[in-house]
C-alpha cells in the first residue's frame, strides 16, 4: 500500500486534469474573444486585455442578431409542440396497457436514433411541397423528428414513476383520462417538463444538418449555421475574434441554464438514456 498522502495528491491531480481538460477550450475561446488586432495572433494563456471590439462586430452584424432570434423562435416552438404532443402520449404509454405498447415504445426509441440524413431527401421534398423552404417552419417541422421521440421517451419514464394509487383515487373521483393528465399529473410533472423541455431545447438549438440544408438566405440562418458560415472581409481571412465572440454569446446562456438545472439534467439524461 502506498502512502495515503501520495494517493490523495494523485487523486486530486487527476481531478485537476479532468477539470482543466473540460473547461480549458471554452476558457480559451473567452480569452480569444477579448483580444483583437495583433494580440489575437499571439498565444496568450491569460487574458491580457478586455477589448469588446469583437462583440461589437458580431452584434453589429444584423444577420447574426437575426439568427439568434430565429434560433430562439425555432427551438421554442419545437419544444412547445413536442411537449404538447408528448404529455398525452406519455400518459398512454406509461399508464394504459394495450396490445403492442412495448413495440410502440421500441419504435419511438428507434426513431430517436434515426440517422437524420436518411430522411433528408424526403424531408427536402416535403419542405418544398409545403412551400416552407427557407422559413423557420422548415426547421420546426424537421426538428420534431428528434425532439418528439426524445420527450415522449423521457416523460414516459418519469410518468411511470408517479404513484398508481393517486391515479386510482382520481378515477374513483370520476376523473377521465384527460382530467387525470391535465389536473392531476401535469402539476406533478412540472420538474420533469422543465428538464425535458430544456434538453429538447438544447438539441434544437444545436442542430446543424437540417438548418444548413433548409435555409438559403443569411437572414434565415440559425445560430450554428451562422457561426459555421461566418466570413470575414475577404475570402482568405477567417474572422477568429468575432467567431469566438459569437460562440461565447450563444454558449453562455446554455451553460448558465445547464449549471442551474444540473441535477435535474443529469436525472433527465440518465432517465432517457439518450444522447446529448
Amino acid at each position: 500500500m502506498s502512502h495515503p498522502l501520495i494517493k490523495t495528491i494523485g487523486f486530486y491531480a487527476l481531478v485537476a486534469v479532468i477539470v482543466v481538460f473540460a473547461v480549458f477550450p471554452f476558457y480559451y475561446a473567452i480569452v480569444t474573444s477579448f483580444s483583437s488586432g495583433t494580440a489575437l495572433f499571439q498565444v496568450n494563456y491569460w487574458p491580457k486585455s478586455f477589448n469588446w471590439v469583437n462583440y461589437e462586430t458580431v452584434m453589429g452584424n444584423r444577420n447574426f442578431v437575426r439568427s439568434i432570434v430565429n434560433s430562439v423562435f425555432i427551438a421554442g416552438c419545437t419544444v412547445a409542440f413536442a411537449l404538447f404532443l408528448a404529455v398525452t402520449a406519455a400518459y398512454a404509454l406509461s399508464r394504459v396497457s394495450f396490445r403492442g405498447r412495448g413495440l410502440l415504445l421500441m419504435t419511438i426509441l428507434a426513431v430517436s436514433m434515426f440517422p437524420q440524413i436518411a430522411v433528408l431527401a424526403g424531408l427536402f421534398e416535403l419542405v418544398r411541397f409545403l412551400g416552407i423552404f427557407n422559413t423557420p417552419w422548415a426547421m420546426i417541422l424537421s426538428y420534431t423528428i428528434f425532439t418528439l421521440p426524445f420527450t415522449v421517451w423521457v416523460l414516459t419514464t418519469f410518468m411511470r414513476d408517479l404513484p398508481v394509487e393517486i391515479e386510482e383515487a382520481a378515477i374513483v373521483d370520476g376523473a377521465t383520462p384527460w382530467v387525470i393528465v391535465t389536473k392531476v399529473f401535469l402539476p406533478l410533472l412540472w420538474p420533469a417538463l422543465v428538464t425535458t423541455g430544456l434538453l429538447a431545447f438544447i438539441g434544437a438549438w444545436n442542430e446543424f444538418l437540417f438548418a444548413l440544408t433548409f435555409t438559403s438566405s443569411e437572414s434565415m440562418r440559425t445560430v450554428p449555421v451562422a457561426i459555421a458560415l461566418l466570413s470575414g472581409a475577404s475570402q482568405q481571412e477567417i474572422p477568429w475574434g468575432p467567431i469566438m465572440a459569437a460562440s461565447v454569446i450563444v454558449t453562455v446562456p446554455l451553460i448558465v441554464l445547464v449549471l442551474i438545472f444540473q441535477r435535474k439534467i443529469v436525472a433527465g439524461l440518465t432517465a432517457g438514456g439518450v444522447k446529448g
Partner: protein
Amino acid sequence: MTDQTLGRASGPSLKQRRQRAAFWFLAPMLIALFFVAAWPLLRTIWFSFTDATLSNLYDAEWIGFDNYLQTRELSSGRVVYRGTLVDPAWWNAVWNTVRFSFVSVFFETIFGLIVALVMNAEFKGRSLVRAAILIPWAIPTIVSAKMWSWMLNDQFGILNDILLNLGLISHRIAWTATPETAMTAVLIVDIWKTTPFMALLILAGLQMVPRDIYEAARIDGIHPVKVFFRVTLPLIKPAVMVAVIFRMLDALRIFDLVYVLTPNSAATKTMSVISRENMIDFDKFAYGAAQSTLLFAIIAVFVSLYIWLGRVDLGGERR
C-alpha cells in the same frame, strides 16, 4: 337513477374507456411522427431508385438499382460497373465512419469510466467537477468545432504552441488540413465533447451499486483494483453496454463536426457528409438518397441489435 345506472352499465367499461382515450392521446404524436419520420424515410428510399435531381423531383423516373450498382457492357465486350457500391469515394466514407465510430467510442468509454469513477468517490469539490464536465456537453457542436479549429490552427493555435514548448513536436502541424492528422483532430474534439455524456451514464450505473458491497470488500481486505474488476465492472456492465451502443449509433451518423472542422477533407468525410454533398451540393439527389438509404440500413442493423440487447430494461413492462 336506476334506469340511468342500468343504461350506463351496458356502456364501455373502464378498461375500454382508457384504451379509447389512449388511442386519441397517441394519435397526434403518431401522425406527427409519420409525417416527419416514416413518410420522408420512405420517400428517400423511393428517390434512391430514381434519377431525381434537385430541380427535377417530381418527374423523376424509376431506374431500379442503378444508383446502387449498374452494369453496362461496352461494345468492346468489357463490363463496366457504376453506382455507389463500386464508388471508391463511398467506401472511403464508410471506412472513415467506421474507424471514427470505433475509435471515438472506445476512448470515450475508457475516459468516461475514469471520470465516472472519480465522480463516484466522495471528495471536496465533487459538484464542481460535475459542473465542469457538463460544460463540453452543453456547448453546441458547431461552436466546439470552431473553438477547436482555432486551438488547432497551424500558425496561431495554442495546441501547437504547447507541444512545441514541451518539445513534443519540432514544427507546427496543420492539424485539420493535413490528411494524416485530420481524423485525429476530429477524434480529439468528439472525445472531448462526448466523454461527459458517457461519464454521466456510467455514473448512473455506478450509483446503483450498493455501497455496502465496497464496505464488505474493504473489511475483507480485498485490493481496490481487484474489487473494481471483479465486482464493480460486472455490475455496471449493462449500463456501460447501453451507453456504448447509444454512442455508437450516434457516432455512425456524425455530420456537423466533420463538416465544420475539416471541410472537404477526403480523410474524414463520413457517410452522412458524402450523402448530403451528393444530394445537395453536387445535384446528384438520387445518388445521395441511395447513399443515405445504405447508411440507414447499417444503422437499422445496429438499432435491432440494441433493442435485442436492451429489451429487458427498456421494454417498459418490467419496471
